[in-house]
């Protein structure tokens, strides 16, 4: 991979730091009048998601990271790996539980996910902002209770538990905001 100098650091550039693939978030050039110039850089470690603050001497460089964001369809899991497919080339990518992380709660077959590939292998899997999933278990719905206020836990096909209004029944599909993990509405009828 190419090397990138501090003056080429831009938000979104993927670089290697301490052996970890990182995405640059911010890059600030500072110089105390005369003397050594520095770049204060915020980077996100793509594997852990942690944000690092680093100071570099201006002109220092980092190796680029072989990182690619692709949109893949979730296929299935064999219990150990989660398999994603490129809808164009039909290439399969096996993602470990580390890479899938919390997104495991929002996995639905044939749904598209943003997968970050590092050296060709998935390191993170991000869900779409909204996803529709079926309820496998919840207390019986209260007929006619469409008033606001009450809620109850509901277990989804993925095992995730979300709070839903009292009128929602087992077997129904609901729409969830994956960023907050909150119920949005009943699923749209397809």
């Amino acid at each position: 991979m190419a090397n990138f100098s501090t003056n080429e650091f831009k938000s979104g550039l993927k670089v290697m730091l301490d052996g970890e693939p990182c995405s640059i978030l911010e890059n600030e050039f500072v110089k105390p009048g005369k003397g050594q110039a520095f770049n204060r850089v915020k980077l996100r470690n793509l594997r852990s998601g942690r944000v690092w603050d680093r100071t570099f001497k201006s002109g220092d460089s980092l190796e680029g990271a072989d990182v690619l964001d692709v949109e893949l369809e979730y296929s299935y899991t064999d219990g150990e790996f989660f398999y994603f497919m490129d809808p164009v080339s039909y290439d399969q990518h096996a993602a470990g539980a580390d890479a899938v992380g919390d997104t495991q709660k929002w996995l639905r077959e044939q749904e598209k996910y943003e997968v970050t590939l590092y050296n060709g292998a998935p390191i993170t899997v991000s869900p779409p902002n909204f996803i529709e999933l079926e309820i496998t278990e919840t207390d019986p719905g209260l007929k006619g209770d469409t008033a606001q206020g009450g809620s109850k836990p509901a277990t989804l096909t993925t095992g995730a538990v979300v709070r839903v209004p009292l009128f929602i029944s087992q077997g129904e599909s609901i729409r969830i905001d994956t960023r907050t993990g909150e119920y949005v509405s009943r699923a749209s009828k397809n």
Partner: protein
Amino acid sequence: MTDWRPGANNAIQRQRAALLADLRNYFAQRRVMEVETPLLCRAGVSDPALENFEVPSGQEMRFLQTSPEYAMKRLLAAGSGDIFQICKAFRREEQGVRHNPEYTLLEWYRLGFDHYQLAREVGELVAAVLERPGWQVWSWQGIFQEVLGAGAHCASREDLEELALGNVGDIPLDLDRDGLLDLLMSHCVEPAISGWGIVFIVDYPPSQAALARQILDASGELHGARFECYVDGIELANGYWECGDAAELRARFTSDNLLRRTRGQPERIADEYLLEALTAGLPACAGVALGVDRLLALKSGAKNLDAVLSFGWSRS
């Protein structure tokens, strides 16, 4: 991506025009003569922290000036008296919220002034332009003590690195002593004084004298006779009680080039015109360079330099 419009709006363009007129008026009243010197010269700058843009001309290379300092000192040596200049200056690789590689500089020289007297004049000018009540003066040593709670003037490289690791965290571990002082200045002192209004820092460590003369204080400690002017933590001006000793400056240029060689930077030949002029005799004087774009940004409340430039680096 091709936005042809200016970064500075019309109100700020008018403020710039008025500011330039005010600056010229200020110096006219004080009988300081406006001059012009070339921007594209035969010699570059040896300071390892500065890089010139190089421009080929026939068989030779010319250098866009990082400041008009050398040529203005030749005018002083030729008997110009007090002079000022408003011109463009160029510094490669310096781009950010407060930096544009091409920028407007106000530089002036006062005969018979030392750096304290010139700092006072800068204070009067900046306070008037920005309508601020006054300014503070701190010694370099005093402000480090105040902000970091530790003396830095005589501290070893190792002590400074420990101080920087404790106060900044992740830092490059290959910094020399001056690099660490610069890091502490830009990462700790500058943010700490961002609420202090106009602040002058005077009497730098001798290793950071740049082109200032070296002076001994009452306790026998050596300082660079240099000052910096900060406004709200933003560096605005850098001044020297000028070193007029040709041999001394030649020695500093040589050690600059040694450092350049070890860092893999191109070496820069000394400006022989300047050294000849100093040999002929530079009158005792103090000089200062002030960033006009930053002054305008402070006056107009702009958060970044792009908003006060017609066409900043990304649009030019």
